[in-house]
């Protein structure tokens, strides 16, 4: 799993119940194929994803973390995803500042009707993370 020739990234995805999770469901019911590297956790809103949820897997060695939410203006709770966006800005600023590769954390807006986009985005992310290689935290003992 961990050798350079065949690296299969582990990606954790937090999907908002109303849009991206439903979009992922649509990808499934439409029998769209996407790489099986993604483990999905459903949250009620992308705004409910505390940065600690992203940091914990990253420090434990996950190769990528994905956050999926409704398009701006479409939040089921009106403004949750706008707050997600600001939190993402803060989180990536901090990751950059402390020498983490912030490209391991993705935020994408995918609606309930965008099953195709979900499958494509997952494919795209797996390719991108494969290029980055394994998360160095996987083998770090001093976390």
């Amino acid at each position: 799993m961990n050798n350079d020739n065949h690296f299969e990234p582990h990606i954790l995805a937090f999907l908002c119940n109303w849009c991206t999770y439903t979009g992922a469901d649509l990808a499934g019911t439409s029998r769209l194929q996407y790489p099986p590297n993604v483990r999905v956790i459903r949250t009620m809103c992308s705004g409910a994803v505390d940065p600690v949820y992203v940091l914990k897997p990253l420090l434990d060695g996950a190769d990528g973390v994905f956050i999926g939410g409704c398009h701006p203006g479409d939040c089921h709770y009106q403004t949750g995803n706008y707050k997600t966006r600001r939190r993402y800005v803060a989180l990536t600023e901090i990751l950059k500042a402390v020498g983490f590769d912030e490209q391991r954390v993705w935020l994408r807006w995918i609606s309930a009707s965008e099953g195709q986009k979900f499958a494509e985005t997952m494919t795209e992310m797996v390719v991108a993370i494969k290029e980055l290689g394994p998360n160095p935290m996987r083998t770090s003992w001093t976390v």
Partner: protein
Amino acid sequence: MNTMLPLQNGDPLITVRGFLRQLLETGVVEAIFLPLEVDGGATLPALVADPAWLDQADPLTPVMPINSARAVSALTNKHSPARLGVVLRPCEIRALIELVKLQQATLENVTLIGLDCPGTYEVAEYIEGKHAGRITLADYLEVAGDDRQPALVGPSLRPACQMCDQPVPEHVDIHLRLFGLGTDQAIPVTLSDEIAEKLGLSQVSQPAADGRQAVVDRLTAARRQVREKELAAIRERLDADGGLASLFATCIRCHNCMTVCPICYCKTCLFKTAAFDHPPEHYLNAARRRGAVRMLGDTLLFQLTRLNHMSASCVSCGMCTSACPADIPVGAIFSAVGAQVQAAFDYQPGRDVSDPLPLITFQANEWTQIGEEK
């Protein structure tokens, strides 16, 4: 209104005590929060209701055992029970403003009394220096005048104070202007007309402002230089491979930094719950996976989570560094990272109660490229 407090008994401390006593006795405030002398040479912040206790008051004390914004939060909470006067340092005022925005304190019914702050010592070093006669009030007050650290022999200022570029209080109702002051001179005070009237003070012209401003500018520039150098050194270490882990290599996860942080107000911090009490197998599995694993775990997770939760509001008071038993420059690390977060949101913590906290507000039309395909 600007006025001057004539020096009483040739002693600035007695003069300031007299002024504060007047605030209490004329009913401008019903109780006053400030540092009181305690046995053994230290001072502790206290709430004083009886003016007689002001004989023990030492608002000019060069130590801050806690960031007193935390105390003002406890004293005011949602609404202040009486007209309170609070004597605070500039970094404490900035922290208080953040706590007001976080709905943990209020400025209603509160008279903010701010002092120019030459800096503070670690408590233990101050007590030792005071007993040995190395730290004197006169020396301490005169530091800003000729660009030096107080009491060059013996203890030095806390690291956060050595690099403090905001030593002048903002947004105060009463400002005691200590910078550029000889200890044998009257003390310039700026206060609202309403308070001045109650105290029976009338306008007295203060010494030319540019003399004082030059002193403040020199001090601020010198300390900003230290700050930039310190933060650059921290950033260089963070940029190195495994930099964060190496900076926190000696962290024992005592949570002191969080406990003393004025911004970390959560009653039940995630890290004080059982959330990270993993079953024993978890650690064994992690050790098998990685070869070895640090105990106690989740150290970097704690620090990174704290950075995410509070660094936008970090006022660089450096209490975390003072409280760290492992001598980690926590405050400099948080200031270095915090400055980048604050710059991203164009946010300056403690500047103004009307500036919204960056993580609870938003604009619909900002960062519109985020979340879209690249």
